[in-house]
Every structure is written in C-alpha cells, then in structure tokens.
C-alpha cells in the first residue's frame, strides 16, 4: 500500500464527478493537492490543461508520472491503491460487481438526467442570457423522475446504500449528481423519502467532507436567491 506520497487532482467543485473524488480524498485522508480548474472561465480548454488531458475534462488525477482521467477510474484507483477502508470498493467479486454495475448504469442514467436539469435551469440561462426553456425542462424532469424511480427499485431497494449495507464510491457519484439541481434551489428528492433518507445516511457517513465539497454549489444557490 502506498504511503508518504501526495496525489495531485485537477478539479472544479461545480462538477459533480469532481465532488465525488474530492469527498473520497478528504474523507479517507489520502494525501493530495488540489489544482483548481475553473470550467466557467474555460480553463479546461487552455493548451496547458490540454497537454494534461487532451479530452479537456475534469477530474484528472496525477500520481507521480501517472495521469488518469474519468472519475470512475480515479475512484477505483484511489480505493485500491491507498490503504482506505475496504467498503469503499469491496474486494469480494459479488460485492464489487454491484458497485461496477451501478457505476456503469450511472453514465447513461443518473448523470445525464440530473445534469440536464441544472444545465437547463442554471447554466444555459446564465451563459446565453435566455429564459429557461420550460418544455425541455419539463421533459428533463420527467426523465429524471424515471431515473429516481429506478434508483429506488433497482439499486436502493431495502438496503442502506446503493450497493449494499455500506457506503461505496457508487453512492458518492450518485449523491453528487443528485445534489446538482440544488444549484437552482431545486430539491429533486423532496417527494422521495427513501432517497432522502439515503442521502442523509451518505452525509453522515462522509461527515464534513460533504459540505466542504458542496460549498461552491451552495454559493451558486445563495447568489441566485439573493438576486430574486
């Protein structure tokens, strides 16, 4: 197991997968150094950042000379390289498979559907100076509702966390996506007690790392409230 070294992470806390990585690092106290990449200022498109990641995305992990992109891969690498509690990414094949299963499903379900709500309600109006496209937003909310239903029936069911009785990196990815619409003050879990309770359990399990990671998002929400 690795000790005495510090990983470097390039991230923007407004990005959901970046927050998941940030929470894991701070909660498990993996030595790390954060490099901030401000997406809203286009810092991911600079030639300097592009040398690091030609795909111009965050998060990026650098461990010695090893550069790794994709939050899935980063979370799994951190969990298996550093001496952190095993429950984050279990070793047993059947338990690990459940985490892999969620993380694969997440890409085409939780991530796009939750992100779309934030994009339509906050990002596009802010960037283009246009009002919210209500028709598209309604459709996005409807798609998200199906996803939330599936999260409950396919994954959470009667378990404490998405992949079993213990928190895993899958829960971090999911919770950070589901928090994003809060940037416009929208709590998508307000009518879903099962998922709300799960979110509370995740918050308890990660402690102050949760609010630390979400400070930027809360600031966006508060600034919007102040303007209204």
């Amino acid at each position, binding site marked *: 197991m690795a000790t005495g070294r510090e990983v470097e992470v390039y991230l923007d806390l407004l990005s959901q997968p970046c927050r998941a990585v940030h929470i894991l690092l701070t909660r498990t106290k993996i030595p790390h150094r954060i490099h901030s990449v401000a997406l809203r200022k286009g810092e991911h498109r600079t030639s300097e950042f592009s040398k690091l990641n030609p795909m111009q995305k965050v998060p990026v992990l650098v461990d010695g000379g090893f550069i790794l992109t994709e939050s899935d891969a980063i979370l799994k*690498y951190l969990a298996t390289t550093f001496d952190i509690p095993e429950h984050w990414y279990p070793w047993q094949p059947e338990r690990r498979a459940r985490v892999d299963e969620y993380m694969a499903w997440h890409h085409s379900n939780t991530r796009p559907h939750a992100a779309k709500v934030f994009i339509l309600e906050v990002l596009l109006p802010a960037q283009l100076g246009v009002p919210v496209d209500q028709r598209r937003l309604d459709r996005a909310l409807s798609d998200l509702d199906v996803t939330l239903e599936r999260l409950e029936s396919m994954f959470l069911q009667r378990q404490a966390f998405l992949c079993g009785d213990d928190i895993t990196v899958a829960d971090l990815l999911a919770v950070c996506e589901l928090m994003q619409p809060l940037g416009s003050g929208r709590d998508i879990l307000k009518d879903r007690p099962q998922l709300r309770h799960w979110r509370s359990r995740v918050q308890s399990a990660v402690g102050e790392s949760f609010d630390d990671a979400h400070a930027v998002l809360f600031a966006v929400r508060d600034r919007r409230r102040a303007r209204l």
Partner: protein
Amino acid sequence: MNLGKSTRSEKFQHFETETSAWLRGECLLKAAVSVRMRPDEPPLSSSVAIMLYLAEKFQTPEHWFPADLRLRSRVNEYLSWQHMAIRMHGSKMYWMRVMIPKIMGIDVPKEKMDGALEDLNASLTLIEENFLQDRPFIVGDQMSLADLVAIVEIMQPLGAGLDVFEGRPKLSAWRDRVQASIGKDLFDEAHQVILGAQDAMKQVDPSKLEPFKPKILRLFF
C-alpha cells in the same frame, strides 16, 4: 458480446441469457444480458460489470483485466469514457439510418444526421489518438476488455451500412489485431447478426415495430 456459446460449457451453466428477438418480429424493447451471481439476489446487469465479474471470478488470462493497478486503471478509464461517447454515437447510427426510416417512414433531417456523424467521427478520432496512440492495443501489447468493448461498439455502425474504418488505417489495423486475437471464427460469429441487420430489417413488417415509436419520439425529436 456473444454469450450464446456459454450455454454449451459447464462452467457457464448458471448464466441466463436473454437476447433480442425483434429481428424475428418478436418485439422486445430492450435486449438484456444478465448473470445470476447468487440465487437470492437480482441478476447482475450491465455488460461491463458482467465482464469484470467474469474476469475475476473465472480467473481469465491476465491480459483481459491486468493485475497491475495502473494498466487496470487504463482499462477502467476506457470502459468509463465509452458509455457516453462511442457507444452512444455508434448506436445512434443504426437508429437514424435504419430504424427511424423504417418505423417513422421518414429520413432523418440532413442537419441532424451530419451532427451525429460528426460526433461519431470525434469519438473514433479520440480512440485512435488518445486511447490507442502508437500501441497495438488500448493498454499495451495484448488485448484487454477495453479492446473487446471498443470493437463491438465500433462495429455497430457497420450494421447501418456505415464503414467507419474507411480512411482510418490505424483503426483498421487495430481491428485486424483484435480479430486475430479473438479468433476470426468467434469474431465473425459474434458480428454476424449486426452485419446482416440492415438486410434483415428489410424483411420486417413495420407494424411490428410500433412499440419503438414513443422511444424514438422521445430520444430523437
């Protein structure tokens, strides 16, 4: 990924396979592969998770999913990236060039088609320049799950009559290596259905495909 062979082998007896039968006119809205890991649990879905599980559980040759954590991370990196990139862009081609004209009776507007082709090309270029670079396979000298997942997604648009290998010698050379690594017979068997899909679709009665309409309207219009 062809799991049909699996039923013939003792080791794989406990796998359940459900494959799409819509080419025979039986309409399933979703083709699913599932693996039952334990009798008291729901089956494992997600082809990526299944492959990772099989590699671990059945101690497959190490090259499929290397033990070295950095090489393994490269496989995970590709498997993660591909969902909303090549998989999405490649699958779209079949819908746009074959299914939509057949079911809706119209051609997809040129603008939309051009945009989709652009996205597909961007993904293919990233595979060549970022994931393959000058290596024989995605993570090194031997084929891994990354190449396996990549090849089946890249072959998919061929089912829509789109030759993605044209003008891409690097990708073509990699495909040849993958084919040789898998074995030509198995490779060809696995791709038989998709390569014949465009012709097979001509035989299907459009009314049998009605259940796809709501999904098409939702996703493409």
